């Protein structure tokens, strides 16, 4: 059981900055994120794209912003729990008991939801029967590539993941690569390589095809694909892999008794607390009249939510307003030596 003052759900820019604000006022926190790295949308959707509207930062990329935020919270030694999705919240007297998908547990005084548009999860095939095979012969990511040796694999997608795996697995498996159009979004060099392998007969490339159906008893045995013009092809396949990027799913957040409106959580603008006492929501996930889905708004919301958490974490103390420029306490917390 991890015991800390505040649990932050989501390591996007808003969650990261809120950790800073908690640290400054002397509260401890830990952060959980479903992704394998911090940064939320900035790192997952646009690491290389420039952002021009972070106050006092004329230009930085999504990745630079994330790295700077991580640098800024370094003094507080915040513990991250990545690859974990927060599933359950339970109130126990005056504190909260929280549990993640991987069974990590927390005992906290308050919770800040900085969950963006939800946790990032792999996008799935639209074909219904796929669910049945998910995890045994149909995957959206690869954990153990040795299971594919000498098997027939059908890979769907046109981005880097699909291309890279098609190239790599073609060494040891029979690979079919299926994509909905002739163009690819993956790197040109990989596209070139895939075409070469196709010409050499080391891989079968099918473009303008999409998955039509999968068949099999316990495991997938047969795959049918359909051309834009209606032609159906079918072939034997032991495994199916789909690489369609990530989608954001609100998921468990819907079950926590919060007031939800159009995939966002309603908050008051005084301290960004939700309708449930001790649970705050900030960033893209919160809504209130005038909400702007901008990073700068998320920073403001995080600063206020952090202060809102104080009375739950230290019910017997009063929070004094201070500037980091002049506050001895804040500077000590930042580890500044004079």
């Amino acid at each position: 059981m991890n015991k800390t003052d505040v649990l932050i759900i989501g390591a996007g820019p808003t969650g990261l900055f809120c950790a800073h604000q908690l640290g400054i006022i002397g509260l401890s926190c830990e952060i959980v994120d479903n992704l394998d790295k911090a940064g939320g949308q900035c790192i997952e959707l646009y690491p290389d794209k420039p952002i021009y509207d972070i106050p006092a930062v004329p230009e930085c990329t999504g990745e630079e912003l994330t790295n700077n935020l991580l640098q800024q919270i370094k003094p507080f030694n915040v513990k991250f729990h990545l690859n974990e999705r927060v599933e359950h919240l339970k109130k126990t007297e005056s504190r909260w008991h929280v549990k993640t998908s991987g069974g990590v547990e927390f005992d906290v005084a308050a919770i800040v939801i900085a969950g963006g548009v939800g946790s990032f999860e792999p996008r799935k095939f639209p074909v219904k029967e796929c669910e049945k095979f998910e995890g045994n012969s149909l995957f959206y990511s690869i954990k153990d590539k040795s299971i594919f040796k000498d098997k027939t694999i059908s890979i769907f997608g046109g981005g880097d993941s699909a291309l890279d795996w098609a190239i790599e697995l073609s060494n040891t498996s029979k690979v079919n690569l299926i994509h909905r159009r002739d163009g690819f979004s993956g790197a040109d060099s990989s596209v070139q390589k895939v075409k070469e392998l196709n010409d050499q007969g080391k891989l079968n490339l099918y473009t303008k095809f999409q998955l039509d159906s999968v068949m099999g008893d316990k495991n997938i045995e047969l795959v049918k694909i359909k051309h834009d013009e209606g032609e159906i092809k079918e072939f034997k396949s032991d495994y199916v892999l789909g690489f369609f990027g990530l989608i954001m799913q609100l998921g468990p957040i819907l079950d926590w008794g919060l007031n939800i409106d159009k995939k966002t959580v309603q908050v008051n603008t005084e301290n960004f607390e939700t309708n449930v006492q001790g649970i705050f929501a900030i960033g893209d996930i919160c809504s209130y009249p005038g909400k702007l889905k901008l990073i700068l708004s998320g920073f403001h919301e995080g600063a206020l939510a952090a202060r809102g958490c104080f009375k739950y974490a230290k019910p017997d103390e009063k929070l004094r307003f201070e500037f980091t420029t002049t506050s001895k306490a804040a500077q000590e917390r930042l580890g500044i030596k004079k």
Partner: protein
Amino acid sequence: MAKITYHTHDNKTYTIDVQKGLTVMEGAVQNDIPGIDADCGGGMACATCQVYVKEEWLDKLPAKEDGEEDMLDMAFEPKNNSRLSCQLIVSDELDGLEVSIPSKQG
């Protein structure tokens, strides 16, 4: 204003006057037309604002910008007449446009 008609998956039809300058995505979201999630808020980064454009309109729409087709690879059941509604900016030329919203966005 331009009239945009949205057909939802459950066979309902909404015809809305959408202000010029807004996107077809915003026209739907602001008028509570279900089925367009627009998770990334118009950043061309999520493909959850996919619509199917009525065939006769396909050639009349502004061409896809770089990246829209790549993003459509990720969409739920993309078709040849798929577009990202956040990339369609409403103008006089779009008056009368009809789009269908897929059963799901992901």
